[in-house]
């Protein structure tokens, strides 16, 4: 059964991937109308450059995740939840595909809701644990807040245009304020700060292949919505500024929180908030460029944002697969319990490291290319020296600081998990995952390398997608420097490999002796002396304590023969625990107060009726006498 499912899923995703590639390389959009009504509206599907970019990512991650799940979430261990997982996996991929294709507001909403609900069932696959159920619940609630905004958005849109049909309508200026509704709805799904509250726990609690699909693709649906409707509809002039602002806040706070985490998957989840923030900076900058008629750097920003969608989808999926491999092998994702895993799982360690380098935006991997395009656009905007520079100059500094913080974060994640000595029993005897888990990871790593060392090949695809976003930028040529960058990046990659080989041979020629870590003369260093993730991030966590509000559980040693001292520090999700939960408690208290009106005594109900009728009568009377 599982094999049939896998074959069908792979067949479907390969077909979708091929369709997306054809749409990206061809110059015309694919459109399909049918008179068959769904929900009272005739079907209308459309695949243009923009939706094809997202569809390609969706089908790639969907297919690889399906392979990965075969080994990671098998029937043997997880019983019925494995088959449930297969059904919801398909449902989620199909509904996301429908979101990308549908060109009708009603169908968009239906697909969006299906996608949200199937996401809920995937997150709660392991529903026997309380934390998982809670995470699923928060996700469902946040998701529906977003859907509510989208209901309002599409309904108002349909009301103002007189039809549910979607398409380019930039010239209708009265639609511009609707952008704020779309922003509210889509940013919840995209996980932008501060409406990212559902994201960390959902990503951490879901099975790893589901986390990968969420982080790699599902949050990108929010990004897709933002790009799609900022392209089709007119936007208020201030929209670009707001997006750059929100993006900057998300990028900085997301990565700062990621650095402070101890749970490997939570760390990766917060890092998604950062990356969506970076993408949003690009979108906002491109909107500013449209407003100021600056096609040259605007197109660079949009291309950078779109490429970062792909890149983040690739390396974040790889990182979550790696984290899943670690969890599968050791049974824990708490970094303070891991260490020294590279011996037992060299493939996972190497691939995770590669993805870590890529996500830090370091050359010669793919993360660098998209960040380079964004930098180039922002610098271009700054050198023009009009009012946009006041958005782009801070954004450059934000990108740099976020880059330095993500370097710190991923050095921490990789080294605490894979390097040094095992910290607990759990990490002492890890085993490498099999072909079905490592194969998809190798494929993703290959994509990262390819995009990183030959970015110029991708430019036609990016230009096509940018052109579907804004048809005025159809004649944008590839920046000349992109081809130089491609050659340079490929050369740098080759030099890295050559240097490693040469130094390795030199070291072996000179003779190698293995000994205990010197550490300035320790004779018996123990794993407990190692730096932990918490100590690694202590400098920054302490200086940002006003933001993190870390919770400490501390037992100092007492007496002459102290036993059992401990110190546990945790950085909570502050928006959820300090803002959302208290305010929802307030709502519940008010609701409980309102329930006192309903007490089952008939005479009071009759009184309510009489009172209500009287007020109605007065209203009618007042209207009549006017």
């Amino acid at each position, binding site marked *: 059964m599982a094999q049939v499912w896998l074959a069908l899923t792979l067949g479907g995703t390969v077909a979708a991937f091929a369709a997306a590639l054809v749409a990206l390389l061809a110059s015309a959009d694919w459109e399909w109308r049918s008179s068959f009504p769904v929900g009272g509206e005739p079907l209308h599907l459309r695949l243009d450059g923009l939706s094809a970019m997202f569809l390609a990512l969706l089908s790639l991650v969907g297919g690889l995740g399906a392979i990965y799940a075969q080994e990671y979430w098998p029937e043997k261990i997880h019983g019925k939840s494995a088959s449930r997982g297969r059904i919801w996996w398909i449902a989620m991929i199909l509904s996301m595909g429908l979101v990308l294709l549908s060109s009708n507001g009603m169908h968009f909403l239906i697909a969006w809701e299906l996608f949200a609900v199937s996401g809920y069932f995937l997150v709660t696959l392991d529903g026997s644990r309380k934390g998982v159920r809670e995470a699923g619940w928060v996700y469902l609630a946040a998701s529906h807040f977003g859907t509510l905004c989208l209901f309002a958005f599409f309904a108002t849109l349909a009301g103002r245009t007189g039809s549910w049909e979607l398409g380019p309508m930039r010239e209708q200026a009265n639609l511009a304020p609707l952008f704020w509704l779309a922003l509210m709805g889509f940013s919840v799904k995209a996980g932008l700060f501060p409406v990212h509250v559902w994201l960390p726990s959902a990503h951490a609690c879901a099975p790893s292949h589901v986390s990968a699909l969420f982080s790699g693709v599902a949050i990108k649906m929010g990004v897709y919505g933002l790009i799609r409707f900022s392209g089709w509809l007119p936007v208020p002039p201030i929209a670009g500024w707001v997006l750059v602002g929100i993006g900057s806040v998300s990028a900085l706070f997301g990565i700062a929180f990621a650095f402070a985490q101890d749970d490997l998957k939570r760390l990766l989840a917060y890092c998604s908030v950062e990356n969506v923030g970076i993408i949003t900076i690009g979108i906002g900058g491109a909107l500013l460029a449209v407003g100021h008629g600056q096609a040259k750097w605007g197109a660079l920003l949009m291309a950078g944002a779109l490429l970062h969608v792909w890149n983040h989808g690739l390396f974040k999926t790889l990182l979550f697969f790696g984290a899943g491999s670690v969890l599968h092998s050791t049974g824990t994702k708490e970094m303070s319990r891991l260490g020294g895993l590279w*011996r037992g799982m060299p493939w996972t360690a190497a691939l995770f490291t590669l993805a870590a380098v890529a996500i830090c935006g370091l050359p010669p991997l793919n993360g660098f290319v998209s960040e380079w395009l964004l930098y180039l656009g922002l610098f271009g905007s700054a050198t023009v020296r009009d009012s946009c520079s006041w958005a782009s100059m801070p954004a450059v500094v934000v990108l740099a*600081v976020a880059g*330095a913080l993500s370097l710190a974060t991923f050095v921490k994640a990789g080294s605490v998990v894979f390097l040094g000595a095992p910290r607990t029993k759990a990490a002492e005897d890890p085993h490498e995952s099999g072909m079905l888990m490592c194969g998809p990871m190798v494929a993703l790593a290959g994509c990262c390398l390819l995009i990183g060392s030959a970015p110029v090949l991708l430019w036609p695809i990016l230009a096509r997608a940018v052109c579907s976003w804004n048809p005025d930028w159809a004649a944008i040529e590839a920046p000349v420097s992109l081809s130089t960058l491609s050659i340079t990046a490929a050369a740098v990659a080759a030099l*890295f490999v050559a240097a*490693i080989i040469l130094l*390795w041979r030199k070291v072996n020629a*000179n003779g190698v002796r293995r000994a205990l870590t010197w550490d300035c003369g320790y004779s018996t260093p123990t794993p407990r002396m190692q730096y932990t993730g918490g100590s690694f991030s202590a400098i920054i966590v302490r200086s940002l304590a006003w933001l993190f509000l870390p919770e400490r559980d501390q037992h100092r040693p007492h007496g002459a023969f102290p036993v059992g001292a401990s110190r546990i520090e945790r950085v909570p999700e502050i928006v959820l625990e300090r803002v959302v939960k208290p305010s929802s408690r307030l709502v519940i208290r008010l609701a409980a107060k309102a329930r006192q009106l309903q007490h089952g005594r008939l005479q009071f109900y009759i009184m309510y009726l009489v009172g209500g009728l009287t007020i109605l009568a007065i209203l009618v009377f007042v209207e009549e006498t006017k």
Partner: protein
Amino acid sequence: MKSLIETVFRLVVWLFVAPLLPGIVNRVKSWIAGRKGPPLLQLYFDLARLWKKGVVLSTFASPGFVAGPAVAWVAMVCAALLVPLGPAGSTINFNGDVILLVYLLAAARFCTVWAALETGSSFEGMGSAREVSYAVLTEAALITAVLSLSVQTGSVALNGMLSQSSGPGAALLAAGLFSVLLAENCRVPFDDPNTHLELTMIHEAMVLDHSGPPLAVILHGASVKLLLFSVLLSEAVLPLGGMSPLAAAGALAGAVAVVTIGVGLVESLLARFAFRRVPLLLTTAFLLCLFALLLAWKGGTQ
């Protein structure tokens, strides 16, 4: 063919001049302290000696322990090759090469820190944690300096940015970049390259367990980094593009020498700061660069 020979020549200049700088710094320090001090070419001797030595590897270390220094060194040298050498220009010149330079430096940092953490030692952990944490502020200062040069000259390529005058903010930019140079190269007052108390170090604490050729590569890479930052600082401040080639080459060499002697003087006259004051100093460097940016914004060439 001609460009290949030129690249090789450039490479030779970078690789052979770089180890001279720490020698100059040490001479200045010993001269001020009234000591005899190590010879000017001490680092060359050290490198040659280390290159021939055997290696002791930690039992915990993975192949990344050797690969890290190798990649970091290549990243540093590639970054150096992007920097134009006064009148000779740079090897490769394209729009946005400055971003590549900044990120190659970050790649070198990633590899150094990664290799340090291979050993599972807490000293190396301390050094690495400090390195990546303070880098957040230096990165902000560095990118702001780059941005101010870019806004001033209207160019996003190193050749265009560095050949012109950096305008009214030159002094601010010089002060900011000099602080960045000190912090990035782990010099006093941020770090003390000579101390033997591991608890107080950043860079030295990270390379405690390296030996033999990998250590030689690390030391050489550090000297290339010092030269790179000195050249960047000199070219950012001096309008070399306006001079005749010979004068520009002379001015560049002189300025690099002045910067190096300046590092030596700072090292002789100042004590290392307490770690909690380091962020303050780095923030000051960032603010200096920020003001340079604002001045460039008001005044640069349109």
